[in-house]
């Protein structure tokens, strides 16, 4: 039987993300951990980063991030560590390699294209001065009447 999920199902509720016991003593490291977490996707959730997610896996990942930071990894090394294990799916901001260039360049290229077309159109308009049609006699009469009123 095809049982359809009829409701809006929010799987990740309530998003009660970072727990007090996870927070690191060094506020600078903690701040870096938060920044990194916000760019990583919770793999079992629907489109949530691990900083906001309340899934157990997200907690594990948050702890892993903090562990790597404690061992002295740089931010990029921490991210690379997780991408090695979970694939690029974990990145909320896709890298700029290969086909992803299409994604990243779509906006700028469209903008340049749009501006180019707009500029071409506007220039053509500017040069092609259209002379308004001269008024015929009847219109002149009406104009005079209107101006007199």
């Amino acid at each position, binding site marked *: 039987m*095809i049982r*359809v*999920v*009829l*409701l*809006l*199902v*929010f*799987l*990740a*509720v*309530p*998003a*009660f*993300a*970072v*727990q*007090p*016991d996870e*927070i690191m003593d060094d506020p600078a490291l903690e701040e870096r951990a938060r920044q990194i977490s*916000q*760019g990583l*996707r919770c793999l079992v959730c*629907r*489109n*949530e*980063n691990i900083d*906001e997610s309340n899934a157990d896996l997200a907690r594990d990942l948050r702890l892993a991030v903090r562990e790597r930071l404690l061992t002295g990894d740089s931010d990029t090394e921490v991210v690379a560590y997780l991408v090695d294990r979970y*694939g*690029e*799916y*974990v*990145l*909320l*901001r*896709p890298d700029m390699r*290969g*086909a*992803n260039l*299409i*994604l*990243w360049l*779509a*906006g700028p290229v*469209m*903008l340049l294209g*749009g*501006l180019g077309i*707009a500029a071409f*159109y*506007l*220039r053509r*308009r*500017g040069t*092609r*001065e*259209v002379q308004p049609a001269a008024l015929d006699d009847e219109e002149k009469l009406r104009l005079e009447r209107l101006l007199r009123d």
Partner: protein
Amino acid sequence: MIIELGHFALILALALAVVQTVLPLLGASRGWSGAMAAGGPAANGQFICLAFAFAALTYGFVASDFSLRLVAANSHTAKPMLYKVTGVWGNHEGSMLLWCLILALYASLAAIFGTNLRPSLQARVLGVQGAISVSFLTFLIFTSNPFARLEIPPMNGSDLNPLLQDPGLAFHPPFLYLGYVGLSMAFSFAVAALIEGRVDAAWGRWVRPWTLAAWLFLTVGIALGSWWAYYELGWGGFWFWDPVENASFMPWLIAAALLHSSIVVEKREALKSWTILLAILAFGFSLIGAFIVRSGVLTSVHAFANDPERGVYLLAIAAIFMGGALTLYAVRAGAMEAKGVFGLVSRESALVANNVLLAVAAFVVFVGTVWPLVAEMAFGRKLSVGAPFFDMAFTPFMVAIAALLPLGALLPWKRGRLDRAAAPLGGALALSLCLGAFVWVTQTGGSMLAPIGAVLASWVVLGVVVDLANRAGRGKDVATRIRRLRHLPRADWGKSIAHAGFGVTFFGICALTAWQVEDIRVAREGESFDVAGYTITLEDVRGMRGPNYEATVATMVVTFGARDVAVLYPEKRFYPVARMPTTEAAIDNGILRDLYLVIGDPQEGGGWAVRTYVKPFANWIWAGCIIMAMGGCLSLSDRRHRIAAGAPKSPRAAVPAE
């Protein structure tokens, strides 16, 4: 019995929709006035039938008729009455019925208020609108019938998702649908004009109110959804760049572009074919949105019905209407001859820039939304596109729009001079830069986000003030200025207010993002702690019973120095029927900041997890949206929309100023 009548009315509505499609379109092409005139009554009849069907379904929910499959799956006798009613559209079938009802409502309005349109144009508009109705009604009846019965009704229902039992979300869908579906009118007008091969100023004037209405409903709907997320999800996020959010945002962006380009059609008879294209695309994005939300092809926080059959049907609807309209466009758009001539520096050019930026921004959101799908199908890469991408790729467009807006709004039509338009803005620019510098100096460290946001937001708002001051006449005495301001057309006031609202929202987003303070800790009962100057005391934590949930309620006292600020009661709820927990944050709303308290789980060593946020200027985000929508309302009430295009002016307007 009432349910069966509702079911019958739904089927009758489909039959009437077929009549509304076939007769007017046929009549318009053959010149049969009788057939053309049938469109109006058919549209009204369809609306009445659907209103009855909707009322019947509502009755089923209110009376808790669990022999209805939909009611059994989405309601419960213990649910508060408000949510029994709003539960009608808190599910796929009911919301589709609401969608169809609104489609018919718009067609009916076009039939009633469109009597001064050319009869052939009105007939074609109603015909196209009828065709959209036919497609959605068949979808509703054959794949998602809300009136399906259960053979063995259960004793009680399985309740509405607790997260939807909230006033903010209860009224979020109707507003969104009024917006999504409102864009179908712009689409119908565009297709009707393509069939007629004629677009003139009157057409622009006719399309504008529908677009304006759709846009303002979308604004309110999106703001409601964002506000709901802010207070309900437990950490005060207001926008997630989730596919479903993007699905509502793309039509909003395109509608905003259409709103501006139709002004050019109306006032200057230029940009005609571009405006037609936007009108088609705006509704196209609505259809794509419906597909994204209801097919489940993209993983989203808001997973709606995950049903391939429905997805395919919706995709087919989108493909047929977009394919048909765009083909028609390709064949006919060349015939749209522009009349108005304008120079490179002119209001028209500024509106073109606005359109390019809005359209490309919408395109960026679209590419980002579908990229995971494309990358997987075409390149075999499983990847995610989330908030960090959109923040980077989308924000520059909004910055550019905010930077250009005040200048563009001051440029004259046809031909202007940059230096002359920019001159009155010097003060606004200087003041904005001062404010930005002040913000930059006062904030300790932090990013450039807040200063830049402050500069741009005040630039936009001060630009509006300068524009109004200009319109009032510089160097005139105060009484004259006030009188001139009072006699400005409402559309001009609407424009000013909407633009100011954009500035307010812009600032709210920047300030909240840059200055939010967060504190996560374990607190025992009776314990106090300090966050950003506030002293917060967790007085006690108690259990409580609601009508259909159990709750843990904390009492938290907030003071600032010796001053009492608020006593707040954050809750954790559990809905036993749906077996779902929810967080009810307690918020002390303020103009300058929100205090946002959340109570979490009890900790092993005693005490409770407590989250405290100070969210500066949070309310400005939604206040700005409301201001934008108010501007839209004001513009909608402009007298030129109430009189027929080309009709003689009323004598009152012709009285010369004394």
